[in-house]
């Protein structure tokens, strides 16, 4: 993408026509070539590519994104009406996209009345923002210089952007210094001092702007009524580029349209806070070109040109967007304001950056929607599996986009377009799912974990011995992509259901609940199920453990939507009977609770969904409620002396706002509790078991390890709510942490 003549910054007299380009939101100007490229590439090659990215860019990306992410948390914390603003922003975007054709007509009228012109670009035949605009202009002999310093750096480095708003976020100051030293050969080499580098870049880019014939900008928002564009920046480059040269070309996707200045407010309040943790960016420029202001001649600054000879061209890019608008699942993507919050809050993104988790143009979780709509499924399919559905981006998105759902939908579409797998016979027959034959065997395996768990439990402990042997692990790794470095779950012969069915429950209870026996609790960790039953009984609750299937979480996480949908109906049929009988549903595994409280909205009729949502509880949330309502805490076992705990909550549990119940109960019982604040443990269900992602998952896990290392040295007990989190903590610390409920177990 980069200019062939970056050195022309030292030659402002160049006769070449010059174009300055700026992108207030860091919207990339060229095709990526660093991302995974070949759909058929093996798991091993993918692992190698990600390993390379983690080694070369991971540290810098991690530092920068975690910094932004912390800033976002703080900025959101300072804002009392954050949720209201998000709702407003969401509604405004929904309406704007609904009336998009009308807005296009209105903006065209307004810009033309102002004296400018509007072009609607359908495909990427000519001018597009997504792709090759620079390359195209350069081929035509223009000298194109990016004016956003991050864009400028990657233009010089000839690299693709690695982040939605910080395109050079993967480069350290030292690397930028080396790049500048090689390119510009300064008398005194740069050492990596950010002030010095900025000064140099500012001057070099500034000279270009002063000599440019045309300034090209993006637009964060386009206001139809007045024909204005809004540019949101910190550097000030966009306005300088827009108003210094005589001709201003603004290029933006059609989805940037808003009706008028009145609808802009919530976005101005949200975009900086969500993206970089700033209450507001340094500049929000509202420009309604062409203006009458005279164009300054920098060679003769005292003489100015006549007023009124400025030109303005607004290029609105469709390039797949109008089709996305018709696609009920992808449509939401068009509400995206490219703030970057979903890049920063993503644990996998923090490890691999946008060169791994990103496509041709866009990066991070939302890139899946953009790339599918604009480049096609192939581009999105290459990185889409890096979204584990942890949901940590969901509460951060200023326009409330369900980013994990978009990733799931696209994964489902990719699954359905896949080729027949070479090893499908290994899992065929084991897999009573509703998916197409070509589904990747690895996904089919993890999506059908319940079937495996049942078989494994029935044949335990033999099944565990067999799957624990080296030759079997090697086959699992090679054929099914189950990484041999991971411990497999140990299935138990006696399940929680077996155990509960064979014992007398306390008779004189005040209330009755059903304990949902999730696959992991039931078949692999019955001790936490037993602890839950005994704890609830001690608090005066009779517990029923029903015969009910897997919630659909496992297939959903593999993009097997039809299978998840079927599971949802089956599970609801069983649980609804209990809800009808006045029993609450208590859930141990947070990812299953998240199905009942959130994902089932997609699968069940609204009333059914609401009933289950309102009547299901996380186990520690339920215990908290019982204790608040007068249950006897002395019936439970508490901390003997000064028990200190290092507690890692579960990603989906935190998104649902449920972590505080666990910490409150544990503190109440006398424990001294420290919590982690990493976004994810790295395991994320099946993700950490997959051969191609094992190393990413361990890299993510290292953040958690670093957080708890001190606590461990001080003798704290590790505690975790999710099965995968506790598997990951076991891998990191060599010891399996209990579920919090086990600490309350009266036995």
């Amino acid at each position, binding site marked *: 993408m980069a200019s062939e003549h970056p050195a022309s910054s030292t030659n402002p007299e160049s006769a070449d026509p010059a174009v300055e380009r700026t992108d207030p939101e860091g919207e990339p100007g060229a095709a990526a070539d660093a991302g995974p490229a070949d759909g058929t590439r093996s798991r091993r090659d993918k692992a190698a590519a990600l390993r390379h990215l983690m080694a070369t860019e991971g540290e810098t990306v991690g530092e920068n994104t975690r910094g932004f992410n912390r800033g976002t948390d703080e900025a959101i914390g300072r804002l009392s009406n954050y949720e209201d603003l998000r709702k407003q922003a969401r509604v405004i975007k929904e309406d704007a996209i609904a009336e998009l054709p009308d807005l296009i007509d209105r903006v065209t009228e307004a810009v033309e009345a102002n004296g400018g012109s509007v072009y609607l670009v359908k495909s990427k035949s000519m001018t597009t923002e997504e792709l090759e605009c620079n390359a195209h202009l350069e081929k035509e002999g223009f000298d194109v210089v990016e004016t956003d310093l991050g864009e400028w750096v990657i233009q010089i480095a000839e690299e693709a952007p690695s982040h939605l708003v910080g395109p050079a976020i993967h480069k350290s100051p030292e690397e930028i210094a080396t790049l500048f030293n090689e390119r510009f050969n300064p008398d005194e080499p740069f050492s990596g001092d*950010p002030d010095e580098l900025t000064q140099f870049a500012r001057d070099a880019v500034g000279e270009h702007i002063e000599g440019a014939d045309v300034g090209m900008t993006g637009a964060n928002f386009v206001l139809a009524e*007045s024909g*204005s564009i809004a540019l949101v920046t*910190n550097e*000030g480059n966009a306005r*300088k580029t827009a108003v210094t040269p005589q001709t201003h070309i603004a290029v933006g996707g059609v989805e940037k349209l808003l009706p008028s200045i009145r609808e802009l407010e919530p976005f101005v309040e949200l975009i900086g806070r969500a993206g970089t943790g700033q209450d507001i960016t340094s500049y929000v420029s*509202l420009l*309604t070109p062409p203006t009458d202001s005279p164009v300054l001649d920098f060679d003769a600054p005292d003489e100015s040109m006549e007023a009124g000879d400025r030109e303005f061209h607004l290029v609105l890019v469709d390039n797949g967007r109008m089709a996305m608008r018709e696609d009920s699942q992808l449509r939401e993507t068009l509400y995206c304001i490219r703030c970057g919050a979903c890049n920063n809050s993503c644990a996998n993104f923090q490890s691999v950056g946008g060169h791994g988790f990103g496509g041709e143009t866009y990066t991070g979780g939302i890139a899946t929607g953009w790339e599918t709509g604009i480049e096609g499924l192939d581009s999105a399919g290459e990185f889409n599996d890096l979204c584990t559905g942890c949901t940590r981006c969901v509460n951060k998105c200023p326009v409330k986009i369900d980013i994990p759902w978009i990733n799931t939908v696209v994964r489902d579409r990719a699954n359905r377009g896949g080729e027949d797998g070479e090893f499908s016979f290994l899992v065929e027959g084991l897999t009573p799912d509703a998916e197409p034959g070509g589904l990747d065997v690895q996904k089919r395996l993890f999506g059908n974990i319940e079937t495996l768990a049942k078989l494994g439990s029935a044949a335990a402990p033999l099944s565990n011995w067999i799957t624990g042997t080296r030759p079997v692990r090697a086959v699992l790794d090679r054929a099914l992509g189950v990484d041999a470095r991971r411990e497999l779950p140990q299935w138990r012969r006696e399940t929680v259901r077996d155990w509960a069915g064979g014992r007398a429950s306390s008779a004189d209870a005040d209330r009755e609940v059903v304990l949902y026996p999730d696959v992991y609790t039931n078949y692999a960790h019955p001790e936490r199920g037993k602890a839950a039953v005994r704890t609830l009984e001690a608090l005066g609750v009779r517990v029923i453990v029903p015969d009910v299937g897997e919630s659909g979480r496992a297939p959903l996480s593999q993009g097997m939507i039809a299978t998840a949908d079927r599971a949802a109906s089956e599970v609801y049929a069983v649980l609804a009977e209990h809800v009808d009988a006045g029993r609450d549903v208590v859930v141990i595994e947070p990812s299953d609770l998240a199905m009942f409280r959130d994902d089932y909205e997609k699968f069940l009729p609204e009333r059914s969904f609401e009933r289950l949502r309102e009547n299901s509880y996380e186990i520690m949330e339920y215990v908290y409620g019982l204790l608040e309502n007068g249950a006897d805490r002395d019936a439970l076992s508490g901390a003997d002396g000064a028990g200190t705990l290092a507690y890692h909550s579960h990603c989906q549990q935190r998104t649902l706002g449920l972590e505080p119940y666990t910490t409150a109960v544990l503190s109440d019982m006398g424990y001294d509790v420290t919590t982690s604040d990493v976004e994810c443990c790295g395991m994320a269900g099946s993700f950490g078991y997959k051969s191609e992602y094992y190393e990413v998952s361990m890299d993510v896990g290292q953040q958690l390890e670093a957080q708890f290392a001190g606590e461990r040295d001080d003798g704290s007990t590790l505690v975790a709510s999710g099965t995968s989190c506790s598997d990951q903590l076991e891998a990191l610390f060599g010891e399996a942490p209990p579920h919090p409920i086990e600490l309350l177990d009266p036995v």
Partner: protein
Amino acid sequence: MSLYPERHVIVVAASDVVPDMPAAFDRLAEEFDAGLDSQVLATGPSATGDMGSLVRGVHGPQEVHVAILEDR
């Protein structure tokens, strides 16, 4: 234009200071309706994090001073 000099001094009447963003937008909307539709919300020196840490003074000023005139 306020972007070129290194120091930007803003002189503003106290009566033109608004309490918050909603008030600012009410006023912006009025002014847009009146045809004053090129406006800038500038909140401080220009800044970048692109070179590795926060640096003030990029394409805009390095320093911003605001003088508020009371009784206006």
